[in-house]
């Protein structure tokens, strides 16, 4: 066997994470099997019908830009990358009449620990993102777009390039799409290992060929984005939701979620469950149901805590998360964030100090170094949590952690500082006795950490 053949044996097939029958009313992952990602397969599933409809190429009179945006607003689609901002509203911010170049950017820099949903969308259904981006470009009068793909998933980048070629060859991208007056050029761009580039303005800097250090906002990308031009940035899953909305209507999308939380959402469930993977379910699905889909807590253990929206979201103890439904409003009300939909499950054998130690190291490692509170503060957080975990903690350390976290939060250009501070405060808030035990007894309250 050649080296490449050796490596290929271990490539993920998607059968564990994506093509299982444990989604509920899926829209984006529906009907996928790993082999049917090509253009002809996507079209057989109804793909590119939404694009044909808005352009009036299905026998109808087409949709105006305003009608497309109104439909997306009606759907209550909210940004799937983490912030949950209403997508239709974001699109309406784009100054459509701006005379110069405008850009559309897809944020596929999926690096939030716990998240792997966009990888499976792009790998197994790339055309749904291309169609969603084309519809968005039409609605906002944009002619050039980029899909910024996480550098670590290079196979996905290669596949997206192939999908782009297929779409271009079929006249679905490029000049005068499907014979209309609408033109849209779409390209793939890859990152190369920087968590911060998931932040939209850092991503823009990176796309310009620079260090990915976030920009001050305002100005927002809608007025000063890529190359200083008006730019709209949405997450991969957000774009992937758009074709369904156009085909079935905004109200139908809203109806399959819950008010203010339209549609389905893909949750990446990782950690202590029997079947980690991606699960596409309607917004508002009870957490308990999601946990059941993922096979329940591993080895029959009991649930201790869940980080519900990626590593940056505050941890929630079992008794709180078990009463939540999986949507933006319910998780926010419980004191955390739905974020990117990365559900990290911890069972009762887990030491929260040790868990936090790994996360704090991550934020120190990934701080871009631009803002002093984050650059220095993440180092302090990591070192202090590390010494507590190592049995070298001091009684005043818990207050010190809180103080450092407080001095980071709200004092940095981007949200990475907040993302580093929030898990620390939430862990101490909900699991303070574990931290105190580590300090007082130099040992772990929970025992063995597997």
């Amino acid at each position: 066997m050649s080296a490449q053949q050796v490596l290929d044996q271990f490539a993920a097939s998607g059968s564990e994470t994506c093509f299982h029958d444990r989604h509920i009313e899926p829209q984006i992952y529906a009907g996928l099997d790993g082999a049917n990602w090509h253009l002809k397969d996507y079209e057989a599933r109804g793909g590119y019908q939404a694009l044909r409809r808005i352009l009036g190429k299905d026998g109808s009179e087409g949709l105006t830009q305003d009608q497309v945006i109104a439909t997306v607003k009606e759907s209550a689609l909210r940004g799937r990358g983490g912030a949950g901002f209403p997508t239709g509203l974001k699109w309406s911010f784009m100054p459509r009449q701006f005379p110069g170049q405008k850009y559309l950017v897809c944020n596929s820099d999926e690096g939030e620990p716990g998240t792997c949903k966009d990888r499976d969308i792009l790998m197994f259904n790339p055309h749904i993102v291309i169609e969603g981006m084309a519809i968005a470009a039409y609605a906002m009068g944009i002619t050039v777009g980029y899909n910024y793909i996480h550098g670590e998933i290079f196979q996905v980048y290669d596949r997206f390039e192939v999908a782009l070629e297929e779409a271009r060859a079929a006249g679905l991208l490029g000049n005068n799409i499907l014979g209309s007056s609408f033109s849209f050029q779409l390209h793939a761009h890859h990152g190369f290992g920087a968590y911060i580039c998931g932040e939209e303005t850092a991503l823009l800097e990176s796309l310009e060929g620079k260090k990915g250090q976030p920009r001050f906002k305002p100005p927002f990308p809608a007025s000063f984005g890529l190359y200083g031009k008006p730019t709209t940035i949405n997450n991969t899953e957000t774009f992937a939701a758009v074709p369904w909305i156009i085909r079935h209507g905004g109200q139908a999308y809203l109806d399959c979620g819950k008010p203010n939380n339209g549609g389905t959402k893909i949750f990446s469930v990782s950690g202590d469950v029997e079947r980690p993977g991606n699960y596409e379910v309607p917004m508002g699905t009870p957490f308990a149901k999601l946990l059941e889909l993922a096979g329940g807590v591993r080895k029959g253990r009991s649930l201790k805590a869940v980080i519900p929206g990626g590593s940056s979201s505050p941890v929630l103890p079992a008794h709180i998360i078990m009463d939540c439904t999986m949507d933006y409003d319910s998780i926010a009300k419980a004191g955390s964030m739905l974020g990117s939909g990365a559900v990290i499950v911890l069972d009762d054998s887990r030491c929260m100090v040790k868990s936090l130690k790994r996360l704090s190291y991550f934020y120190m490692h990934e701080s871009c170094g631009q803002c002093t509170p984050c650059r220095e503060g993440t180092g302090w957080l990591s070192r202090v949590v590390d010494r507590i975990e190592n049995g070298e903690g001091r009684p005043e350390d818990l207050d010190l952690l809180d103080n450092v976290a407080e001095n980071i939060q709200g004092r940095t250009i981007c949200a990475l500082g907040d993302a580093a501070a929030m898990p620390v405060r939430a862990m101490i808030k909900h699991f303070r006795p574990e931290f105190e035990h580590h300090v007082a007894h130099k040992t772990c309250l929970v025992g063995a950490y597997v």
Partner: protein
Amino acid sequence: MSAQAKEQAGAGPLSEAVLARFAKEVAKYPAEQKQSAVMACLAIVQQEVGHVSADSEAQIAAYLEMAPMAVHEVTTFYNMYNQRPVGKYKLNVCTNLPCQLRDGQKALQHLEQKLGIAMGQTTADGLFTLQQSECLGACADSPVLLVNDRSMCSFMSNDKLDQLIDGLKKSEAR
């Protein structure tokens, strides 16, 4: 050629194939924004040569009409660029929390034992470099590792790790 010899040899002129790949990347961006292709060009050079040397940075800077320091800033900012020669196979094992909960750390330790090196080191035969990495974006597949920036290996139990290492060694011996 050993990694050390490669470094001493410098970057050499860029091949026609590499220049063609550069051109394909540059064509994606507006004519006055060639710099946007710098990340792709650096990744291409790394794939060809194994790492990014100062000479390579200078060549890319000239090609994209950027200051060499602006290229160097990119090389040093992003985690995946190798700033010095690495083994023929660079193994990046994710140990971030979701992976740590599913034996990511154990996979790293297993590879340390199997290869007889510590994380961050390269085997004496120059075949393997072992690194801890941050989130690879494949959390549900843990344990996961990325080989040479481009091949993700999923669900890597100790048995599979052994198969991987033995298989790569065998492919070299052929």
